[in-house]
């Protein structure tokens, strides 16, 4: 990293002192900002902030924004516990996207995707991810990466006009490869730094540091299920291999130890009423294996087994391959027996029983469906089944 930079700067000064930002160094080179920091108006950093200000403006107005008060209040509170006096600079936006992700932009906009909220077993897991993202913000990683890429691209532009002779093409190609590998390596260094800082922040705030590695184990499980492929490329990946991250996070957690008092866990309370909508988004993704893995884990983690079982049933019903109807029926039944089942689980049982000619059993479940959802949009149709038509 340092060698390459020296080369860039050497070349740059040779060609007229053109590199305008010399202060970036290796991954840890740029100083963290202090409380209330705003970039100088004429700086490249201010431009970066303005660009994300525009994204934030759109985010504010987006129909996919989750405006639910309880969920927003919890995320804001976790951010404040993690960021301390930097909390006023960070503005969370909950977004309905069924993927595991959160981002923290250089201007302090924090995006938390619904797929992340759904996958977090407890508040500690969510705090771990938020801590990681806040670390990116505090360490100004976006700015560092922007400058790193600019230096590379500027250097390549000069090489384009100055490389001469028979080896020019080879040198150009090699430089291009080194550029890609170096930019990716720089990014991986940032991810490692954020993993470590995030874990320290969440453990300091009283959360369970072992939750960080656990989150990644869950993700590996989903990925292994098959229908989404992530190949790790040693040179070009922008994030370290998940296995390496798990090992490091596990080691760091062991150094910290479990928290002395039980960590806050208000997640279920804050998103309970949203979770089933998130599950529905997941089954709409059309990734059967992955979603099956996720829902079976959610059914086991105890936050909303009835909901997870119902949507698992829906997943099978929609795929409708050999034996899927029987699986769907099984999950609907299990959902009906669990605490606080969705009304639709009873309808699910009723419809399959009806198709199988088990009219009496079907009617019983239709009645239970209507008891729970008398105003449902399809209630007239269900009453037709009951009246024996």
């Amino acid at each position, binding site marked *: 990293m340092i060698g390459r930079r020296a080369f860039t700067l050497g070349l*740059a000064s040779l*060609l*007229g*002192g*053109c*590199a*305008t930002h010399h202060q970036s160094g290796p991954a840890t080179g740029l100083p963290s900002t202090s409380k209330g920091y705003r*970039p100088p*108006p*004429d*700086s*490249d950093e*201010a*431009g*970066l*902030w*303005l*660009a994300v200000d525009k994204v934030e*403006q*759109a985010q*504010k*107005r*987006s*129909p996919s924004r989750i*405006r639910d008060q309880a969920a927003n209040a919890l995320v804001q509170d976790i951010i404040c516990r993690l960021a301390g006096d930097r909390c006023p600079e960070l503005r969370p936006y909950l977004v309905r996207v069924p993927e595991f992700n959160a981002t923290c932009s250089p201007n302090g906009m924090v995006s938390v995707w619904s797929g992340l909220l759904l996958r977090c077993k407890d508040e500690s897991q969510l705090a771990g991810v938020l801590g990681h993202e806040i670390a990116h913000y505090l360490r100004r990683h976006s700015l560092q990466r*922007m400058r790193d890429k*600019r230096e*590379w*691209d*500027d250097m*390549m*532009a*000069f090489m384009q*006009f*100055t490389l001469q002779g028979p080896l020019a093409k080879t040198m150009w190609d090699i430089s291009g490869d080194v550029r890609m590998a170096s930019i990716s390596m720089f990014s991986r260094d940032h991810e490692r730094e954020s993993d470590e800082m995030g874990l320290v922040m969440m453990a300091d705030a009283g959360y369970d540091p072992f939750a960080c590695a656990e989150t990644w184990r869950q993700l590996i499980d989903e990925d292994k299920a098959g229908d989404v492929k992530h190949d790790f490329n040693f040179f070009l990946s922008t994030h370290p291999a998940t296995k390496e991250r798990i090992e490091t996070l596990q080691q760091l957690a062991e150094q910290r130890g479990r928290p002395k008092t039980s960590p806050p866990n208000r997640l279920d309370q804050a998103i309970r009423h949203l979770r089933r909508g998130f599950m529905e988004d997941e089954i709409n993704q059309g990734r059967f294996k992955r979603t099956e893995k996720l829902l079976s884990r959610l059914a086991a983690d105890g936050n909303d087994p009835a909901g997870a079982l119902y949507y698992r049933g829906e997943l099978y019903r929609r795929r409708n391959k050999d034996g899927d109807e029987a699986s769907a029926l099984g999950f609907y039944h299990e959902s009906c027996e669990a605490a606080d089942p969705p009304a639709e689980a009873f309808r699910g049982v009723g419809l399959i029983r009806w198709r199988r000619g088990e009219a009496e059993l079907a009617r019983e479940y239709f009645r239970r469906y209507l008891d729970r959802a008398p105003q449902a949009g399809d209630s007239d149709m269900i009453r037709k089944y009951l009246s024996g038509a």
Partner: protein
Amino acid sequence: MRRTAGTLIVLAAVLLGGCGAQSYRTTERLVRTDAQPCIMLMPPDIELSERTAGGTTELNAAWTKAAEAHFATALREHLTSIGADFVEYLPPDDASPDAQLLDELQSLHATVGQAILEYHFEPALRLPAKKGQFDWSLGPEVAKLAEHGKADYALFVWLRDSYASPARMALQVVAALVVGVPVSGGVQQGLCSLVDLKTGQVVWFNALLPREAGDMRTLEESRATTHLLLDRMPK
């Protein structure tokens, strides 16, 4: 001189892109009535950036802010000087669906404007289905904007302006000395449309083609750019 390094490059730019000051216009869809029409000024979409040696543009916050202020002044001066009636668009609350509509229409305006440039003004690319007519629209949803200011037409403006970074200027010198190839500097370009608030139809359109001239960072130059964009607007 801040845009490019050396007269050589300026000369090449003039030779290669000499049509820079030319602007397109059309009034084909405009139907005049006796009453003086009123124009609603949509928030202009302006970005000023630095163009790096590597060729990417990096937004500059200070320049953009200055350009927005200069354009606001120059636009109002211009409209007043031609005696046009105009009102400001009153942006709705962020939570309102209309706020998002504005974002979408701003993006759509830039996209439609580029399409007009390509498929109306390039004779070879003219779309047969248009049958030679100037027929472009931002869609009937535009009518909702009329609730945020009483007017007949909305004026949309999209402006991009960039300046060579010090590294790019050095690259221009190196390229000129070593291989004699001109490397372009910063570029200014713009689009503006007058849109019928009842139908969404673009009734008048003007494009400022990419040119290595102009400077939205100063009020005087901003006036010149505004003039190029708007001087053929129907009075």
